[in-house]
């Protein structure tokens, strides 16, 4: 049976090297034309392209998913001008595609799980596709839902908590001691690469930078690269007097910062706190310095321990996040199922109502002696009989919306009650946007106000978030 389905075809850092991703990347100015091509040639009713440095993916809705997937693969091969790209492509459809969308937006598929940029990139992709007119109700709703999943994941799990690189952690700790690095001074002792990176990171937050090194030429070189001043190693003690943060990364095999030096320094500093970061192996700072008052010493093991803890916390959080994604995927599919079932539900109710309406009118025609109050009571009784009779069948149909059994039930209902065959697309998909107001749901058979509302209204569904309990 042909049915409308979500499809995704693409490649990412998981499957493709950077060269290939670069070759297929779609800058914003080319994306609009590509979206048009995709819809014309790839059996897509709706289409959206996500192109970042880590992924190039086409998201779509198609009433012929199998053909769409084949065409999309071909299109990727054509654009890469190489059949080898096939090995790097993955494809998802149906619930797999929905789950993938949610996972990508929630940064669960990212290189650094929990990184925040991807959500913004996906949002841009959606607005680009919306402007190009290639996004309709289904894809639009799916991505809106993906954003809300991402928000939930960030809010309810620790997925984005804690930085995971040594220089960011150093920066975070420095800010925990000095609140802001603006105007603080950072001393870089030695000119190792790792130290340079950390110093650059701190300088970016507004700190002044001084580099001391055994080789003045190298000190000057690093200072130039990071926008700081260079000093000779003999000025170490003097510079320690003024520094708020000192990062040491020399390749000396002896301690450079000893308790003796630090005693002098602390006295001169009038007990202003100093944050020492020793990322040299072997270490540059005597560990005894760490127990001195107002001196905070972190070596490379300490920093890496923090990084590992943060990463572990993110991984634990990813587990919880996957559960959220699972639940939201199920909820979205349920919504889709009810969407597809809506015409049958509406027709079934309409059939019953019209029969009752006709019969009541005919009976009332014969009972002219009844006063208006009695006539209303009779009408209400008839409505009530319809509602009660329909309660169970409607509930069953709705509950089985997303199972294959649901399709059989719909078929049975259509034959048993001689209902008209609905069009291939559910009405909500052909309209602009389905109403999301839960109070306007004609699908709830238990709703007492239902008879006061015309049935040819657009079927409306509660927002997914509010239906969690019922799914």
């Amino acid at each position: 049976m042909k049915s409308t389905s979500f499809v995704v075809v693409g490649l990412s850092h998981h499957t493709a090297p950077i060269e290939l991703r670069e070759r297929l990347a779609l800058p914003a100015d080319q994306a609009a034309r590509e979206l048009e091509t995709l819809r014309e040639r790839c059996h897509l009713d709706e289409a959206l392209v996500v192109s970042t440095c880590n992924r190039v993916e086409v998201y779509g809705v198609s009433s012929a998913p199998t053909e769409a997937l084949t065409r999309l693969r071909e299109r990727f091969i054509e654009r890469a001008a190489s059949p080898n790209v096939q090995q790097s492509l993955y494809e998802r459809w149906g619930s797999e595609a929905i789950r993938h969308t949610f996972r990508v937006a929630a940064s669960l598929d990212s290189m650094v799980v929990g990184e925040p940029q991807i959500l913004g990139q996906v949002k841009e992709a959606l607005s680009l596709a919306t402007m190009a007119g290639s996004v309709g109700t289904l894809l639009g709703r799916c991505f809106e839902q993906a954003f809300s999943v991402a928000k939930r994941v960030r809010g309810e799990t620790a997925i984005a908590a804690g930085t995971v690189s040594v220089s960011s952690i150093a920066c975070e700790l420095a800010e925990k001691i000095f609140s802001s690095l603006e105007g603080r001074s950072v001393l870089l002792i030695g000119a190792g690469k790792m130290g340079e990176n950390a110093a650059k990171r701190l300088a970016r937050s507004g700190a002044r930078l001084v580099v001391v090194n055994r080789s003045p030429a190298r000190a000057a070189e690093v200072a130039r690269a990071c926008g700081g001043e260079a000093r000779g190693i003999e000025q170490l003690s003097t510079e320690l007097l003024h520094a708020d943060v000192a990062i040491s990364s020399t390749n000396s095999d002896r301690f450079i910062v000893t308790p003796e030096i630090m005693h002098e320094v602390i006295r001169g500093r009038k007990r202003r706190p100093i944050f020492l970061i020793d990322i040299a192996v072997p270490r540059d700072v005597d560990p005894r310095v760490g127990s001195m008052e107002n001196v905070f010493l972190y070596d490379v093991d300490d920093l890496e321990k923090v990084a590992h803890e943060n990463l572990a916390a993110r991984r634990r959080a990813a587990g919880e996040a996957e559960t959220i994604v699972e639940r939201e995927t199920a909820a979205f599919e349920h919504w889709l199922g009810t969407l597809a079932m809506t015409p049958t539900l509406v027709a079934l109710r309409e059939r019953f109502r019209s029969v009752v309406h006709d019969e009541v009118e005919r009976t009332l025609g014969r009972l002219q002696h009844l006063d208006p109050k009695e006539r209303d009571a009779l009408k209400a009784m008839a409505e009530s009989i319809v509602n009660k009779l329909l309660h169970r069948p409607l509930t069953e149909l709705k509950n089985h919306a997303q199972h294959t059994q649901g399709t059989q039930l719909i078929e049975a209902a259509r034959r048993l009650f001689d209902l008209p065959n609905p069009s291939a697309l559910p009405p909500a998909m052909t309209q602009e946007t389905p109403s999301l107001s839960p109070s306007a749901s004609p699908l709830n058979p238990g709703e007492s106000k239902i008879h006061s509302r015309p049935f040819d209204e657009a079927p409306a569904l509660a927002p997914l978030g509010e239906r969690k309990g019922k799914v």
Partner: protein
Amino acid sequence: MSTEHLLFLSPALFYALASLGFAALLARGDETLGRRAKLALGLGFAAQILLLVYRAFVSHFDSLGGIHQTLSIASLLLVLAFLSASARYPLSALGAFVAPLAFFFALGAGLTPEGTTLSPRMRSLLLPVHIGLNLLGVVAFALAFALSLAYVLQERQLRRKQLGGIFKRLPPLDVLDSLGLRLVAAGFPLLTLGIVTGTIFALRIDPQGLSPGQGFAILAWVVFAGVLLLRFAAGWRGRRAAIGTILGFLCALVVLLGYVLRAGGGG
């Protein structure tokens, strides 16, 4: 215990709930409980205002005379200062230290009799001035005390490299340190004048000598004077200054406790 008495304890109850909520915010990062804690603090505040108004109009509001009013206003000012500070700065986690203090003040107020009618000998303009100055001083020191506790905790965690939840939720060390210093510097002249007026007042009533309460008040003054002196002259900062502030405030608390016990026992 009369219904009225129970009513007087209601702010303390709100502050106790707030303390629990803030503790959950600090320990587990429970934002929802944190927000509720702030609400509880606000409700306690409102309850205290209502009680003060009630007292002013229904029973007789006897200036700033008794320890009951003193404690009541102390907790009121403390909560007001904290709520307005945390509305502007991200200091909510400090509620875990401030709310219990507000609770103790409000509990003290709830347990002491309010109707201390002053003997004509004690009626003097000096008394409300003395109490008012001390009140403001105590509130400044109470906030400095909370900041210092947070400092000591935060510094210990940084030193032990325990960078878990509590660490993440407390403000940076230098914020705690400089705010603490400012509060002590503001509270000190208030306490000084408070003690001077108190001593003049006490000597006028009873020229025989000073009570143990005044002894502790002077001890608190000496500790705070030391903290300030060492800070400005010897560049003391950080942990030592925080511990000094904590000790100074504990002395001030002993003074207050003495008053509460005397008033509670007497009533």
